């Protein structure tokens, strides 16, 4: 993080003109002002809906129907959260956690191995293979639904969480493989070579030299897989039709569509719970994520 402090560069500040012919000091002040305004704008833009979700989940029905900034004493309630304990929604969230964790682990393992192979081993058509993978994204996922349903049924994976994990892994894999491959290319090969000279096998070199250094890309891939699995509605609704294994995305829609009048309080409470992990990850893992994304080209 480089901070941009105006320093005295030894030049007369009036002899050169900044942007729009303003002198440098005015331009700098203006720039700082724009910066603060932009930061505040984006913060409010993204935080406002999240805040609205939180406060709506803590209000009774009558409190929600009169638009207000805060729940008052008589409209404040925790019932929507306490109601969730032991309800089917708890199962939905648990299923989502299982599926998401499984997807993350599988994506990281597969893309680490493939990324290493693409970056360090010589075999034909490597670049073409990687481009070919990205072409997979061009086929609209919604049309994959029916063939996937049939293939999964034949493999006996339909209605199992493992089946959804495999599908989601396959979907997020091209991007993760590409990320790993590009990242491992930036690690100097000399480090591995010195391990080999010391008698380490290729596997040992990979395990003890490459993996520790690939940590940012691993976290970036894991977060990408998390975003995909945690977000997924389309595949979950096709491959897990049973209530027992349902994840929260189709589960939430079901909650909305049963009975009359959407149970907004419950929906907002569940939405809030599913927003907390992203907030925590974004706060604690942001620097790794940014390091992992320091790639330059396709």
């Amino acid at each position, binding site marked *: *993080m*480089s901070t*941009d402090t105006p320093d005295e560069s030894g030049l007369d500040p009036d002899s050169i*003109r*900044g*942007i729009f012919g303003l002198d440098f000091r005015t331009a700098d002040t203006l720039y700082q002002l724009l910066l*603060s305004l*932009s930061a505040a704008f*984006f913060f409010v*833009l993204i935080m406002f809906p*999240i805040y609205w979700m939180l406060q709506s989940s803590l209000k009774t029905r009558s409190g929600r129907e009169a*638009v207000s900034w805060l729940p008052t004493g008589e409209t404040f309630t925790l019932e929507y959260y306490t109601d969730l304990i032991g309800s089917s929604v708890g199962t939905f969230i648990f299923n989502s956690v299982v599926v998401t964790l499984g997807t993350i682990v599988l994506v990281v393992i*597969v*893309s680490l*191995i*493939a990324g*290493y*192979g693409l970056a360090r*081993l*010589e*075999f*034909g058509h*490597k670049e073409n293979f990687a481009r070919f993978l990205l*072409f*997979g*994204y*061009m*086929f*609209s*996922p919604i*049309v*994959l639904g*029916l063939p*996937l349903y049939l*293939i999964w049924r034949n493999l006996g994976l339909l209605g199992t969480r493992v089946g959804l994990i495999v*599908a989601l892994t*396959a979907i997020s894999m091209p991007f993760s493989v590409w990320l790993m491959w590009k990242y491992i290319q930036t690690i100097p090969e000399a480090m591995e070579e010195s391990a*080999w000279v010391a008698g380490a096998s*290729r596997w040992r070199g990979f395990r003890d030299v490459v993996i520790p250094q690939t940590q940012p890309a691993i976290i970036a891939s894991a977060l990408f897989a*998390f*975003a995909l699995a945690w977000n997924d*509605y389309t595949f979950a609704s096709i491959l897990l039709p049973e209530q027992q294994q349902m994840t929260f*995305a189709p589960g939430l*829609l079901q909650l*909305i569509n049963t009975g009359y009048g959407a149970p*907004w309080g419950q929906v907002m409470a569940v*939405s809030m719970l*599913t*927003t907390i*992990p*992203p*907030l925590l990850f974004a706060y604690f893992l*942001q620097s790794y*994520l*940014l390091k992992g994304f*320091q*790639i*330059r*080209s*396709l």
Partner: protein
Amino acid sequence: MASEVKTGDQRGFSLSQLPLTERHVGFLSILPVILLYLVISIIPVGYAVYTSLHEVSLAAQTWPFVGLQNYVEVFQIDRFWDSLIRGVVFMVGSTILQLIVGLWMAMTLNRINRAQRLITAVVFTSYLIPTIVVTLLATFMLSPSFGVIQELGANLLGLWSPNDAPLGQRSLAMPLLILIGTWKFSVFITIFTLAQLRSIPSRFYEAARVCGANKWEMFRDVTLPRIQGVILVAVLLRSIFMFNKFDLIWTLTQGGPGSATTTLPVLAYIEGFQNFNLGLANALAVVMFVFLAIGGIAYFKAFNPSSEVET
């Protein structure tokens, strides 16, 4: 994919314990990827192509081969061309807006000194929030009876009539979808760009300052060359993702009101899963794929996002 081609001759000692050649190990390392790719991409795409060439009905045992009849039908229905135009509007509008907002966010996050970590976390969160939550929240906030945005937009600013739901209006539905998508997906571009911005050594800017460059010149001559390549990649990926975007549109508007937000993926879904017109739906999917593939190849030829900018 500009990496210097290496010959694998100086590595004999590393593989001497293994009876496998480097080519075999290399192939083994991508084998899981190939297998996964087979079940998620190759077989389903093959299935789609096969189905698109047949007269499919779920009741019949055998599907007669009809050649290109489904494709002829695709190009003859007005709904296809209308949906293609709407899809392109949605894709181009979304991508441009996301690029502007994403870059602006990256520039902002790169330079703020106070609460940087917190604001970055909040901004990144929008990408990780589940689509379904974004949909439900948008529905809730736009609700005609108790929505806060309805309150602000209709009653305070008078942008639309207080009795209407903005997503239920032909003129507002598509712009709103683009805006909601931008809220969620701009961060994708921000992450790519910010990662590059962080890697620019500050001495570059110091040197530029000593030479008397102003902010705009610094951006043009120092920053832009560094982030150009990665922006090209991010724009390509975002365009593809937005063109194929289904869940956000479907859960918010089901392609309505009327068909104001029916893009090609929505049309394919309606034809396939509601009208059970599988031959036509799969032909649509293949046409969409060809459209994107041609667009992608043209993009590569025009901008070459593979080339790295050496700075």
